[in-house]
């Protein structure tokens, strides 16, 4: 009888002719994260100027409830929480992909040009177009993100893409684009500068179904793609030579990973502005919770959704009258948690 050998910390599983390994710890963390996310989401929907009990929220979500509850839950509050969850998941996966393929924990989608490009597009429209153009902002952000990411990829191409070169070129291009943002901010009227600053900090307030629909369709396509790249990611953590000798077609694999990461981040940023910190911090938190050698994708997505949902709720609970942008609260919640993990696991994890 053949015995499948399990690597440390992982359990071998086989279903029919397919076999693979699963980390029980990652599964546990993922399930716990999902449960917490559901609790936060339900509480968050119930909380507001008109409070609805958690039981009624679940009831309404499942099709029951009074007409008033339906209006508040389904039309007003659900789009906002869904946007928070989807944006968090998208950014976290994008960050996990970027950090793995760049082999650098400081890399996040902004080194691919996405966030900076989106910021330039949005700020340009806000400053040049004034208040009237506010509806154009998501489109401008999306266009800015995609154009900048393409520019980075093209400039980094030199008989193929090298991860290190891509990151450095991305930083250079990002800096030019950021200078453009600063230039717009410096010459703007103070009203426009404030409006631009709010957008730059990322916000899910005022999200509507019109934004949720394209975002969820995008994620439904992109998240499976991201998971599909996981097999090559596993090999790409090593040297290029090792990866190649393990049978990875590096250029194709890199293009797939970069495209997926860019598309995920661009979709998220267009919907909610640059909540860039999620993409940096969540993969690192997930890595420290799950162990292993690279940030886990699915767990990152769950924790990313959780972080943004918690941040949005915290912003509304702490300062109900002011509505801090969710991007700021994300950093206030996520950064101390990462610091605590760093202190606790000091010198045990080195990835």
């Amino acid at each position, binding site marked *: 009888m053949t015995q499948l050998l399990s690597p440390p910390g992982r359990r071998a599983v086989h279903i029919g002719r397919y076999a693979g390994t699963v980390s029980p710890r990652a599964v546990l963390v993922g399930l716990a994260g999902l449960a917490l996310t559901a609790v936060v989401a339900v509480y968050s929907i119930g909380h507001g100027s008109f409070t609805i009990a958690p039981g009624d929220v679940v009831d309404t979500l499942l099709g029951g409830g009074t007409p008033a509850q339906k209006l508040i839950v389904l039309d007003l509050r659900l789009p906002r929480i869904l946007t928070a969850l989807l944006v968090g998941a998208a950014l976290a996966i994008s960050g996990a992909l970027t950090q793995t393929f760049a082999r650098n924990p*400081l890399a996040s989608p902004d080194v691919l040009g996405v966030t900076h490009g989106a910021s330039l597009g949005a700020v340009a429209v806000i400053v040049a177009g004034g208040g009237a153009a506010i509806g154009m902002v998501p489109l401008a952000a999306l266009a800015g993100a995609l154009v900048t990411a393409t520019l980075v990829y093209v400039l980094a191409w030199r008989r193929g893409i090298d991860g290190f070169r891509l990151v450095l070129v991305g930083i*250079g291009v990002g800096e030019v684009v950021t200078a453009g943002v600063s230039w717009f901010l410096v010459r703007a009227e103070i009203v426009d500068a404030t409006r631009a600053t709010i957008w730059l900090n990322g916000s899910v307030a005022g999200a509507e179904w019109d934004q949720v629909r394209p975002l969820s369709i995008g994620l439904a396509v992109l998240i499976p793609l991201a998971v599909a790249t996981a097999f090559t990611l596993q090999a790409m953590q090593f040297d290029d030579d090792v990866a190649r000798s393990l049978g990875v077609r590096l250029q194709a694999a890199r293009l797939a990973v970069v495209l997926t990461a860019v598309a995920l981040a661009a979709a998220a940023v267009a919907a909610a502005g640059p909540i860039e910190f999620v993409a940096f911090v969540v993969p690192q938190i997930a890595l420290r919770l799950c162990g292993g050698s690279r940030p886990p994708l699915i767990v990152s997505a769950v924790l990313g959704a959780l972080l943004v949902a918690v941040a949005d709720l915290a912003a509304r609970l702490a300062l109900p009258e002011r509505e801090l942008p969710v991007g700021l609260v994300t950093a206030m919640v996520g*950064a101390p948690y990462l610091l605590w993990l760093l202190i606790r696991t*000091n010198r045990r994890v080195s990835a």
Partner: protein
Amino acid sequence: MTTTVRPVRTYRRPLVLLGLAVAVVLAVALSLAIGAQWLRPAEVWQAVTDPDPASPATAIVRELRLPRTVLGVLVGLSLGAAGALMQGHTRNPLADPGLLGISAGASFAVVIGFQLGAGGLGGYIWFAFAGALLASVAVFGIASGRRGGPTPVTLALAGMAISALLASFTQSILLADDASLNVFRFWVVGSLSGRDATVAAQVAPFIAAGLLLALANAPALNALGLGEDIARALGQRVFLARATGVAAIVLLAGAATAAAGPIGFLGLIVPHVARSFVGPDHRWLVPCSALAGATLLLVADVLGRIVVSPGELQTGIVLAAVGAPFFVHLVRSRRGAVKL
């Protein structure tokens, strides 16, 4: 990446250092001569060596351009050297001096300064310096943990986390206060304009001390680059070397940020430029980065005065617009392939 690091021929490094020193002198000359009013070299020379109180050229050079140029040299030297140290200590080519939390700490403290009503640039300087100091001590302390010194990864991660946390506080204050945002958006871009001679005099002692520490720290960085265990086996006192390096970075980048606002990008690209000329040996890399930083900052400042003359574009913006394409070109060319 399969890069073969070409050995740098030994005679080349002193030549590079000399060439960079000449470049700084040339940049200083340009900075003194060019502006809303262009001066001839003879006029500049006369204004510096033999001031004539009646001549407008003397007034322009000595009152306006000389303090600004001196400050540019100081800030450029600091950020260049601090960038080289930072990338060496974190062994991360993406590290810039802001990574220790210096830019974010300084920005936060400056905004607090606005709230407390600190008047004028002279008031902000001490706020910015204190903020940079506190933030970087926090980062270093958290990254060090219970045992020994910080590893490169914990240092970088702790720096990112503290920076993001402070930045979120800064932004929350700014969102509630348009008046502060109005001042802050000009400070945060980074600029040399409007700083008088006292600013340079205030930061000069810190920068001088920081440069000495940086040069003293450079040999140890070569050993640390091999990994902490090997460095220890080679006889390095790892914690001492780390602490010296961080002290140097804080002094240099803290003083530079206090004087000119956060221009962290300079500290990021300049070491890459210098590395492509002199290779990875920190004994050459640190001084070459410092000189290249001063040159680049002065050239950016001069360009900022030319392009929208008679107004001017903030140095930080020009630096990014000019430095970044150069940086991208360098990364694309074979030279840029030299790794840490």
